[in-house]
């Protein structure tokens, strides 16, 4: 084939016909921009979520260093620091095993020295004052200072009670505050940092003896940044071995170190669920974009088919015509995509915090979520948008390229399909019938418009179905049997309840009982190391995996429940007879429940009716078996569900429940693990506020958890699902409406002469308008029928199984969000044809009649 230089001609033709198509161009640009917007939103949300998760895990891991060398000495630090692989190395030193100020009980604080690199990698930026210089200067995070009651002003006195070597010997030291920074909410612990001078002044107490006695005071943590985050593991190994140390834990020159797990996890941060979600999102957007862009180009090509036929007549090849169309699509993309990218970034950015809040309510609350404009977001979105445009214009280009010059003259919108010869009706001249026939002219377009409108409606309905299916009661029942649960602060988080040392104070319980609105309550007693199961009668448990106590018996969690919590136990089998239980001869065994509340019976060790023999626990370091070994015998009367609310939030092999009065005499020191109570509905809020105040001021070591707060958290989640689903359906809805406008407008434009003819034989403007309104209404009716029908099918076939996969969702069939939007659609169905008609039909009948000649 001879290569001809015809680019210029093609460019010219493409440009000229481009200018002829102003309304199409406008709609196409908006459509492309919206498509790009959807892609950008999707990418921004996906990347933003991943990015923020990663940052949060990094901060939880203690900074964004690539790796850390642990428990090293000054000498080791100096030998490692100049290794060529290391870009930066931070010096952080533990100054005290514990900070034991009472105020820091709920939120521990660590006492460290950080050099400048460590401050940078630890993401610490001073909000006021300066870094500590003098021996007695410290800086700390704002929450720690608030807990200590220290004003956020340099110069304030900070008194620390330090258990420096972890020996229980506490020294009190006064410091001067030199500066402070805003606490990062993801940290569960505070930080207090002293100066280099302090380190130098206390070399003796900071001697690194970690190898001998595992005391971490004085050890150095060296956070390392490499050139990049690839293959961190082997880089760290190289640094350690090439500096003359060993990775072998038993070797005398062993050096401990690990890579930052947030970097590790980021490599596999996309779990299959996320990938499926993102892929289906991408497909949905591509399809939506395709629906409209294809439609726009299809319509415009068919309208200009004579023009392409003409080009064919004078010798333009099909390939060249395809190029003309592709070129126009590219020009439109060049304008539309950047607009969409920019808008999409901001939409996505505003949605990211919502996603994160839902995903992890605790970690991200009050955190400033940042979304950085990663070039990948834009490159990816632009690419996908462009691909969508090219796919969408492929077929219209083929049609235009394949048109035969002779046919082109006859080829027009009104007879794409030739097989209809007869129409066996005689009532077609009525407006509604005529309108219906008009839609039938281009069935494919009608279907596309109906489909693209329905898509957004179904999406909207799905979002609402999901959010409505969030089962408040199911969710709450997982964590709450009662309105409130009060306990020691440690009960609610690591290290959890462990016995008399962190039991609920009686004063707290009494204060609660005295509150107006208090209805009923009950104590839960427990002590994880109070009772054991006799080694000779272990039940079905796999005892070879369990470490026995000094008497050879196995740990068991036995809880003593007062009446209210006892009644709230979920009975699985056997009986829950209070009289029998109170006789002291019977015991209930706990069984693990799955997320849906179904018992996992294999976790039961005894059958109903079997005997259980319990002993008191013999601590191994307490001089052998000097204590008397008590033996208690019970018969398992039934099985009940183990829940967050009736355990110390940890799970052992054996879990048993007894009435409190039976339980208490069994153990040396019965400890109140938690106290659960109900309140009158109208007083719940008041009691919540009372608890908040009480645990902040009166007994700061106590804490609480309420149904009310969990409820609020959950409704936040509900809103988020609605918000994100709503936003996406609005954008997709806009595309659908645009498609609708485009279809109506072009159908009116292409029929201008036909309308003129109808008017010339006596159709009034009013009749013409009513015909157009009928056409619009048929689209609406078609969309309504399709979306209701398919919405129901989708809801039952896809959303329902989806809901059953998430334990806190109970599928609820709803269709009202879709129905609620229909009147709005109806209005559009009337307004759009009228508006399109009045813009398209300004010319007089005569002018329009002549147009074609």
């Amino acid at each position, binding site marked *: 084939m001879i290569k001809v230089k015809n680019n210029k001609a093609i460019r010219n033709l493409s440009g000229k016909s481009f200018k002829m198509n102003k309304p199409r161009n406008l709609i196409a640009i908006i459509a492309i921009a919206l498509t790009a917007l959807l892609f950008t939103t999707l990418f921004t949300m996906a990347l933003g979520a991943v990015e923020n998760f990663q940052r949060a895990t990094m901060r939880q891991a203690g900074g964004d260093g690539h790796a850390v060398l642990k428990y090293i000495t000054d000498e080791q630090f100096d030998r490692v620091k100049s290794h060529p692989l290391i870009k930066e190395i931070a010096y952080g030193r533990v100054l005290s095993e514990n900070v034991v100020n009472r105020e820091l009980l709920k939120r521990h604080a660590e006492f460290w020295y950080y050099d400048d690199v460590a401050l940078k990698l630890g993401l610490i930026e001073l909000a006021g004052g300066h870094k500590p210089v003098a021996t007695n200067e410290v800086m700390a995070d704002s929450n720690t200072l608030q807990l200590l009651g220290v004003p956020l002003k340099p110069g304030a006195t900070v008194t620390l009670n330090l258990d420096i070597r972890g020996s229980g010997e506490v020294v009190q030291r006064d410091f001067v505050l030199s500066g402070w920074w805003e606490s990062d909410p993801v940290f569960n612990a505070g930080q207090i940092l002293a100066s280099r001078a302090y380190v130098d002044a206390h070399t003796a107490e900071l001697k690194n003896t970690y190898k001998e006695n595992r005391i971490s005071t004085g050890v150095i943590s060296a956070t390392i940044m490499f050139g990049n985050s690839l293959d961190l593991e082997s880089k760290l190994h190289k640094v350690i071995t090439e500096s003359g140390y060993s990775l072998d834990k038993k070797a005398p020159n062993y050096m401990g170190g690990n890579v930052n797990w947030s970097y590790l996890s980021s490599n596999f941060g996309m779990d299959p669920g996320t990938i499926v979600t993102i892929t289906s999102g991408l497909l949905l957007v591509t399809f939506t974009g395709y629906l409209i862009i294809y439609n726009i180009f299809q319509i415009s090509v068919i309208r200009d088919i004579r023009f392409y036929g003409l080009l064919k007549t004078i010798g333009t090849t099909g390939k060249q015509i395809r190029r003309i169309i592709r070129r126009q699509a590219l020009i439109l993309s060049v304008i539309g995509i950047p607009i969409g990218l920019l808008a999409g970034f901001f939409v996505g950015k505003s949605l990211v915090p919502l996603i994160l809040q839902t995903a992890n309510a605790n970690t991200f609350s009050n955190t400033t979520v940042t979304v950085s404009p990663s070039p990948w977001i834009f490159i990816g979105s632009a690419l996908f948008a462009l691909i969508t445009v090219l796919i969408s214009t492929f077929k219209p280009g083929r049609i235009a390229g394949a048109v035969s010059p002779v046919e082109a003259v006859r080829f027009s919108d*009104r*007879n794409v399909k*030739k097989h*209809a*010869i*007869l*129409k*066996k*009706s*005689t*009532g*077609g*001249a*009525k407006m509604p019938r*005529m309108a219906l*026939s*008009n839609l*039938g*002219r281009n069935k494919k377009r009608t279907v596309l418009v109906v489909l693209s409108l329905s898509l957004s409606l179904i999406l909207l309905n799905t979002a609402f179905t999901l959010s409505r299916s969030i089962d408040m009661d199911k969710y709450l029942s997982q964590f709450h049997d009662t309105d409130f649960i009060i306990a020691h602060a440690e009960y609610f988080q690591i290290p959890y309840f462990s016995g008399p040392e962190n039991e609920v104070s009686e004063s707290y319980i009494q204060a609660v009982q005295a509150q107006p609105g208090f209805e009923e309550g009950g104590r839960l007693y427990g002590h994880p190391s109070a009772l054991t199961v006799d080694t000779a009668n272990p039940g079905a448990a796999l005892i070879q995996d369990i470490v026995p106590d000094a008497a050879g018996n196995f740990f068991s969690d036995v809880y003593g429940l007062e009446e209210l919590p006892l009644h709230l136990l979920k009975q699985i089998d056997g009986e829950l007879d209070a009289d029998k239980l109170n006789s002291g001869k019977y015991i209930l065994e706990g069984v693990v429940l799955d997320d849906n509340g179904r018992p996992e019976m294999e976790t039961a060790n005894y059958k109903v009716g079997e005997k259980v023999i319990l002993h008191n626990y013999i601590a191994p370091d307490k001089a052998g078996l000097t204590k008397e070994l008590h033996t208690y015998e019970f018969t398992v009367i039934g099985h009940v569900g183990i829940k967050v609310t009736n355990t110390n939030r940890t799970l052992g092999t054996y879990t048993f429940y007894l009435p409190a009065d039976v339980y208490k005499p069994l153990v040396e020191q019965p400890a109140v693990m938690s106290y659960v109570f109900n309140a009158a509905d109208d007083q719940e809020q008041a009691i919540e506020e009372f608890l908040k105040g009480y645990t902040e001021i009166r007994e700061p070591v106590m804490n609480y958890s309420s149904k009310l707060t969990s409820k609020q958290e959950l409704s936040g989640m509900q809103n988020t699902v609605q918000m994100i689903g709503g936003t996406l359906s609005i954008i997709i809805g806009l595309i659908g409406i645009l498609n609708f406008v485009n279809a109506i407008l072009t159908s009116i434009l292409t029929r201008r*002469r*036909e309308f003129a*003819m*109808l*008017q*010339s*034989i*006596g*159709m*009034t*403007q*009013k*009749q013409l308008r009513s015909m157009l309104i009928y056409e619009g209404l048929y689209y609406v009716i078609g969309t309504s029928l399709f979306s209701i029908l398919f919405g129901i099918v989708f809801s039952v076939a896809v959303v329902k199984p989806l809901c059953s996969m998430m334990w806190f969702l109970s599928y609820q069939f709803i269709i009202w969000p879709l129905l609620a939007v229909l009147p709005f659609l109806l209005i559009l169905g009337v307004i759009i044809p009228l508006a399109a008609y009045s813009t398209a039909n300004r010319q*007089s*009948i*005569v002018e329009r*009649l002549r147009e*074609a*000649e």
Partner: protein
Amino acid sequence: MTILKTKELKKCYGSGDTAVHALDGVNFDVESGEFVAIIGTSGSGKSTLLHMLGGLDRPTSGSVTVDGKEIFSLKDEELTIFRRRKIGFVFQNYNLVPVLNVYENIVLPIELDGKEPDKAYVEKIVGTLGLDKKMLNLPNNLSGGQQQRVAIARALAAKPAIILADEPTGNLDSKTSLDVMGLLKVSSLQFRQTIIMITHNEEIAQMADRIIRIEDGKITSGDAK
């Protein structure tokens, strides 16, 4: 009885030096049942005249009276309604509604008027025009001559005061043209239908009862009966 009367009909496009006088004072009458041909060359103003007579366009000055009614005194919507009751059009390119079948096209103006078509009358017209086998066909499946016959049937069906035919044979070959003209002539006689036809074809014009010649917006001959 005079069914149509024009008086000093003028139509001016543009203004000042560039003004084009498409019609420059046209006066003529048409009697009921007459078949009149208006003949003129391209650009003579004959199409403009036809548009004026049909009330599709408003004149710069002068008046048109159809069936005793001064049509330009009517408002647009009134004019449209008047048109569908009193005037039938036959266009060069047939202008049938593509989504309606032959029957529906024929009765369209009647139904637009909210009336029931006179079935017997329609059947008579259809029989006369030889369309009885094609009633359920869609226009695109008909030949040009057949389409034009449908257009004529449509114009006749509403029993208008006048049928205005704008180059009705312009798109047809000469044999079909003669057929169509024959049918127009027959219709004129059989249904006592007033027909005004414009054409540039002398031979076609000869089939009319009377020929009016128009040149440069003026009637040059034939205004007398």
